[in-house]
């Protein structure tokens, strides 16, 4: 009984940090609609800044002053990020901003490395709260009790701010309809900046306040990211009490998980989340997301068209160049191009889902890694020949997508995205912790192609044929009736239903298909490298996919492939320099700010401006119909 209570208290204390960070994320998302991937970075900065401040400010007063000051400092860093990075891209297509926040993650990682070094820092103990008290004979740290006591006050203060003050009223109004708030005379950019300050500041507080229990290291940002997304989603987007309950639930379960079922620790919170969302699709205290409630920003999407003759010739020339590549006799070039093609296929499959289906998956690595592991496991455990493994791998990935798709498609919008993330993490943690079967952290090795492909060049040709074939297949499907139905389901689910399209089934099929093709990419990958490790299933891999799709251009068919090829090439050069994350992050941010329609979309716009747009015909009655009709005749989609 004593142990039980002690563990419960530990869980409650851990919930403090989780709640602080998650509530900031929830606030930022609620008002700005930005999925802030960099929120974990604010938390990490909080830990580092807090550590440095505590070195300078002595005693108990110094400790708590450091904590508060850290909140202020990190809040101001959040303001800098908002003003410099996000403000220029508020008008960009939905979710595009997350690419910018990803750039911020990279920049902050390297800046932290420069300032605080690579060593893990051990947090100082809180002066005056170093001891333990005995509760039913079990030692409980005093600091834990302090955290348990503080959190409800923070919750109350936030709740009061949001529901009882004028600022809170404005924030809630802006959450629903920013434009109307502006039309009533409120400067919403100021409101956004304020919310960013508060949200980032809370993350900073969370980072500082956990110092005595943990410390500061460079992995903190990604380590907490999944957990805070889970907390926000379980609690219900935008609900502070919900975030508190979810933080407590996750932290307490985690403490018990560690002691009674150690293998479960990584998986546990995702299982909780999957269960909660299956029963309550909008989280414990969340409310339904009304589609279109926030209004579509930006201009209407252009129709897509099959490639014209010019574009076809260009693609043919590029293919010829690819096939001629081994003549250059550079082993390095062949390997690099193989990697690029594989990544392009992965990105194209995600783009298919995201661009055409409007289904934002945050966990697409599950199918890439899934395909790679399916092939690897077949080879390692049953000694399957490469050909068989290669055929079964996409089937395995497709099956995973089939099941996960069925679960996730019951939700929409950001909840959908979060559930795909959670289930992908579930798969990752299974692979990571099931040593006997998957090799765990050591991965699977010695997975080589069949004899007839064992030469680097022949495997390269194989990759070109399968990879480019897969990309062309996706393109072809985009122009098929299935592709039309998929886009119809994306643009207006209700109208599509009314014309007899079973939108859920169409989306489910698209999800499965995208998964299977990511699986093909995974299979190509595992046989080209000869091994596979759990990081192919990780969040960062999924994020890489998202970044290139958005960077290339969601609304253009070739966006995914162009984005993937550019990023992979740039990465190859940049990773040779010491602070490559900083360089890459800055580059991403610059591209995001300069090309808010993605690389392809923005290039096309620039081209049109250069060519000059044709004069308007006299417009008469139906302005909206005219927009799309004229767009249709003027654009040629490549």
């Amino acid at each position: 009984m004593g142990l039980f209570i002690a563990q419960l208290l530990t869980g409650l204390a851990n919930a403090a940090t989780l709640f602080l960070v998650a509530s900031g994320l929830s606030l930022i998302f609620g008002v700005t609609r930005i999925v802030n991937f960099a929120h974990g970075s604010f938390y990490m900065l909080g830990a580092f800044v807090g550590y440095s401040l505590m070195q300078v400010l002595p005693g108990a007063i110094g400790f708590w002053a450091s904590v508060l000051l850290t909140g202020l400092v990190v809040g101001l860093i959040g303001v800098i990020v908002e003003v410099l990075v996000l403000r220029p891209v508020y008008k960009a297509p939905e979710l595009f901003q997350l690419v910018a926040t990803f750039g911020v993650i990279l920049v902050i990682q390297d800046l932290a490395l420069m300032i605080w070094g690579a060593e893990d820092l051990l947090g100082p103990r809180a002066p005056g709260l170093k001891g333990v008290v005995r509760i039913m004979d079990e030692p409980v740290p005093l600091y834990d009790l302090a955290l348990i006591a503080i959190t409800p006050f923070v919750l109350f203060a936030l709740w009061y701010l949001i529901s009882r003050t004028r600022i809170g009223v404005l924030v809630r109004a802006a959450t629903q309809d920013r434009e109307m708030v502006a039309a009533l005379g409120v400067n919403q950019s100021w409101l956004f900046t304020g919310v960013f300050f508060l949200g980032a500041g809370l993350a900073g507080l969370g980072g500082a306040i956990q110092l005595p229990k943990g410390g500061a290291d460079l992995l903190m940002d990604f380590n907490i990211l999944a957990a805070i997304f889970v907390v926000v989603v379980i609690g219900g987007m935008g609900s502070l009490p919900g975030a508190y309950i979810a933080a407590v639930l996750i932290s307490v379960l985690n403490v018990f998980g560690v002691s009674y079922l150690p293998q479960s620790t990584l998986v546990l919170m995702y299982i909780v989340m999957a269960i909660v969302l299956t029963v309550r699709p909008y989280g414990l205290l969340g409310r339904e997301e009304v589609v279109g409630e926030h209004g579509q920003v930006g201009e209407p999407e252009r129709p897509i068209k099959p490639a014209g003759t010019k574009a076809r010739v260009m693609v043919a020339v590029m293919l010829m160049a690819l096939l001629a590549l081994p003549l250059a006799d550079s082993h390095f070039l062949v390997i690099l191009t193989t990697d690029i093609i594989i990544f392009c296929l992965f990105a194209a499959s995600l783009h298919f889902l995201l661009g055409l289906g409007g289904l934002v998956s945050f966990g697409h690595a599950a199918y890439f890694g899934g395909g790679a592991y399916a092939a690897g496991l077949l080879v390692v455990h049953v000694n399957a020949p490469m050909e068989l493994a290669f055929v079964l791998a996409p089937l395995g990935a497709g099956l995973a997508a089939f099941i996960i798709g069925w679960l996730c498609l019951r939700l929409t919008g950001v909840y959908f995205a979060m559930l795909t993330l959670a289930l992908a993490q579930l798969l990752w943690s299974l692979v990571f912790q099931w040593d006997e079967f998957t090799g765990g952290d050591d991965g699977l090795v010695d997975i080589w192609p069949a004899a007839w492909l064992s030469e680097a060049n022949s495997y390269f040709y194989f990759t070109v044929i399968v990879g480019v074939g897969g990309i062309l297949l996706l393109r072809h499907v985009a122009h098929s009736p299935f592709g039309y139905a998929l886009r119809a389901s994306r643009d207006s689910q209700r109208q599509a239903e009314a014309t007899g399209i079973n939108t859920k089934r169409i989306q489910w099929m698209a999800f499965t298909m995208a998964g299977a093709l990511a699986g093909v990419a995974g299979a190509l990958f595992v046989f080209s490298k000869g091994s596979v490790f759990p990081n192919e299933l990780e969040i960062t891999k999924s994020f890489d996919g998202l970044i290139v799709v958005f960077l290339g251009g969601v609304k253009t068919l070739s966006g995914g492939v162009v984005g993937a090829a550019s990023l992979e090439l740039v990465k190859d050069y940049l990773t040779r320099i010491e602070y490559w994350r900083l360089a890459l992050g800055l580059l991403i941010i610059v591209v995001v700010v300069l090309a808010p329609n993605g690389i392809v979309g923005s290039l096309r716009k620039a081209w049109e401006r250069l060519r000059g747009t044709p004069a308007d015909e006299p417009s008469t009655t139906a302005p909206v119909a005219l927009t799309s009709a004229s767009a249709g005749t003027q654009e040629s989609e490549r």
Partner: protein
Amino acid sequence: MLELSGVNSFYGKAHILRDLGFSINAGEVVSLLGRNGAGKTTTVKSIMQLVKPEKGSVIFDGVELTRLPTHRVAKLGIGYVPEERRIFTDLTISENLEVGRQPPRPGVYSWTQQTLFDLFPNLAERRSNRGKALSGGEQQMLSIARTLMGNPRLLLLDEPSEGIAPVIVEQMAHTILKLKAEGLPVLLSEQNLHFARMVSDRAIIIEGGLKKFDGTFAELEAQPEIRDAYLSV
């Protein structure tokens, strides 16, 4: 006090307003009439800078609006009631009014929640209800009340009678006349000619983004061919 001249506005590539120009004088209620798609809503949005005119000027009390962001236009004292009402459904009625609140403006009637509840008694009883619990007519009332909380010097009403029960439309006409009696000028975009004639001094008719008529209702009645050509009666 408001003067539009040579205003050209676009949605994407579609040219909606073509060299539109008109003015509104102090204390005047003006109706902007025209069919669906004539450009009425775009005109109102071009004043609020929710749509940025590509050419032309919108001058309010000597201030050029086209260079200002929307919230600055509202701060200058132009109150905007959108066609879709756009009340905040998750906020209570009181909170909706609070969002619209601005400091008192010299020389203009200063509204409070209480005086607005006197004007719209239906809202008073439900002040702690959430916006989503209101009927269409009540939402329209709330939208107007919310804008009045900003103590506007000019009110833009975009099709307030659309989809509202006739008895409520009648009530709204009385409200607008009351506001007029307070000296508040109103630009009323309307399709309901009967309603427009009840409350306004002057009519402006647009079609395809071009001004076709600008004059009193008596003048309009003298030219039935204009009414037949540009209004669906």
